[in-house]
């Protein structure tokens, strides 16, 4: 059936907002090159309004996602890992071209991404037991503290690690019930769009993860200053102290929780620990009297 003469059907790389794949309302796109400098794709250049739409979608999805049972969220994340595994070959190629890795290294990055999702999926119904608990107060009350998702989180995805880095910042946020607007690596958005397609076919409700592509200069300040965004993960601003400072200052307007970037992008194969989960949790403490 196939032959060397067949004209390939190329993909349009679009945004992922509210469970759909819209183009930018601005109609703009930009050229994405692979690590060798060859044309890879035209990706969507998200605008401020796209960022706003993405926040709306994330807020709308928050009530439903945050009140799912943790078991269910864990299963959904595990499902993402399953579907991601099915796209392994495609992603190995995309990660390889985007990051300039040989196929063994690209495969390792993809495999680690799948494994990371599985690791985080398991935290869904355990983290409350690790970071919450009962508090022995000196009065006749039962008192307990539970973690709750902080709400809508805006994430600047790592610029270097296009898939493993992205999965490593997304999974810890959504696993607890937060919803996300993520700005993908501007230079390496192709694996991110593929991940969005994976999410769209993995029982992740629309709006839980919203993905913007394009230069962050347009979207990040909007997200950082948006009053209905509860937290900001600046991981993707690693190495750009001026941008990180500007965005943290903008986030101060509504007292967002801010996860500051490291000086340089980290090695994502390291053990992630709990910090990325707890950075976007609130602790709620409930008192109730004990009596007849």
């Amino acid at each position, binding site marked *: 059936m196939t032959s060397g003469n067949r004209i390939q059907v190329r993909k349009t790389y679009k945004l992922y907002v509210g469970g759909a794949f819209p183009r930018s309302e601005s109609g703009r796109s930009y050229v994405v090159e692979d690590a060798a400098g060859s044309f890879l794709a035209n990706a969507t250049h998200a605008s401020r309004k796209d960022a706003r739409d993405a926040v709306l979608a994330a807020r709308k999805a928050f009530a439903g996602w945050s009140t799912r049972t943790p078991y269910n969220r864990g299963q959904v994340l595990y499902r993402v890992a399953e579907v991601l595994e099915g796209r392994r070959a495609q992603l190995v190629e995309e990660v390889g071209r985007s990051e300039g890795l040989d196929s063994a290294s690209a495969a390792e990055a993809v495999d680690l991404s799948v494994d990371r999702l599985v690791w985080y999926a398991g935290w869904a119904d355990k983290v409350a037991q690790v970071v919450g608990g009962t508090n022995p107060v000196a009065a006749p009350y039962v008192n307990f*503290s539970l973690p709750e998702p902080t709400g809508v989180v805006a994430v600047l995805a790592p610029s270097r690690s296009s898939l493993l880095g992205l999965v490593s910042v997304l999974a810890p946020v959504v696993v607890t019930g937060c919803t996300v607007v993520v700005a993908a690596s501007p230079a390496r958005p192709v694996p991110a769009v593929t991940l969005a397609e994976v999410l769209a076919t993995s029982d992740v409700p629309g709006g839980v993860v919203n993905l913007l592509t394009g230069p962050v200069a347009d979207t990040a300040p909007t997200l950082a200053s948006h009053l209905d965004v509860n937290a900001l993960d600046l991981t993707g601003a690693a190495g750009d102290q001026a941008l990180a400072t500007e965005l943290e*200052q903008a*986030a101060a307007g509504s007292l967002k929780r801010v996860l500051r970037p490291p000086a340089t992008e980290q090695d994502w194969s390291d053990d992630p620990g709990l910090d990325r989960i707890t950075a976007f949790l609130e602790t709620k403490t*409930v008192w*109730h009297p004990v009596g007849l």
Partner: protein
Amino acid sequence: MTSTPPPRQGFDYAPAPESRSVVDIRSSYGLFVDGELVDPVGGRSFKTISPATEEVLAEVSEGSAEDVDLAVQAARRAFETVWSPMPGRERAKYLFRIARILQERSRELAVLETLDNGKPIKESRDVDVPLAAQWFFYYAGWADKLEHAGLGPAPRPLGVAGQVIPWNFPLLMLAWKVAPALACGNTVVLKPAETTPLTALLFAEICQQADLPPGVVNIVTGAGETGRALVSHPGIDKVAFTGSTEVGRSIARAVAGTTKKVTLELGGKAANIVFDDAPLDEAVEGIVHGIFFNQGHVCCAGSRLLVQESVAEEVLERLKRRMTTLRVGDPLDKNTDVGAINSAEQLARIRELSDVGEQEGAGRWSAPCELPAHGFWFPPTIFTGVSQAHRIAREEIFGPVLSVLTFRTPAEAVEKANNTPFGLSAGVWSDKGSRTLWAASRLRAGVVWANTFNKFDPASPFGGYKESGYGREGGRHGLEAYLR
């Protein structure tokens, strides 16, 4: 001219003033830097007064940027040479010592707090001071157990903490800040509020009594400028602030781009939700305690009463009757329930917002009470017929003023309760456990009090969602703010 008081009719409680003689207030105070009370570099000072009488209590030093710098240097030296190298079990013993001295000198601290702050002696005596001692006792016990706190196998202190505290619970907020910081091995530079510096200065003396190594605790008094100099000082590793959301925002902006760790405990506009199946008498107590405790100068005060329409009338009737028994007046009188507003400035703000409430058409009712002629006073007041659109339902008044709103269904109650940029606390009153838990799980607030209000304990994490700030104080969670 004096006249003979009329003979007592009925059971009219005679004055029962606590004696001031237990307190020895100096005429002037220096800054507590490196273990000594020293004169400020700039030589500037300000007066602290009793808000109940406007009497000047003492002259207090105004710390300049240079004073802050000296204090930070002292804290850094103490951190590097003494405090962080010290084994946790030894640090613990200093904190236990401080806890004991707070208990031993509790009466003195209570009277001083009441004089400087205006809060009733029964609250400083029964709440502020015992809780402050309990806080030190609690965190003392953590000092040698940090590796078991679930915050990593080898947690380390951050370094020097810059701490800025408010005037509503001066000694207690000091304890909330200083105890966990020291337990974790940090040293501190603390700035008390300008209207209530005296218990912090007495605490400096307690640090000396405890033989705490010099520089571990430094106290720099002053106003906003002093606080700004402290939080923006490049030599501190941590900022801990309790106060207004406005100042919290400016601190968050100021530390942007630095490596300073920050915790902010800011304002609130808490909903206190009364369902129709609530234990009504206790609910009324909870409403009263929620908004009139400490003159309503409480960030987590239950300033919005949300009462189910089917019992609204009955609850209001009971509430008003209860409010008529509140005793407003001399804070040193042991029978006083509501004391003085902390400052002229705060009184002006309460008056302004109350006037706005009236202009917006809400029904204003104050408990009948005779207010003293001198000092800063505001009667316990409620506004009825308030809607979410009113400013008095949205803005923090930070005074003894309650806005009363109604709701028809549990879903409406929760929706209204969450309809605010704040998220510090909330109250739920119901005798139905499942409904209480349902509401508690949906309220976007850091503390939910069910069938109680304004309860605090060092083992219980406290802190806000949204614009009420971030980070938790109290409990194991409170250690996280002072460790890396």
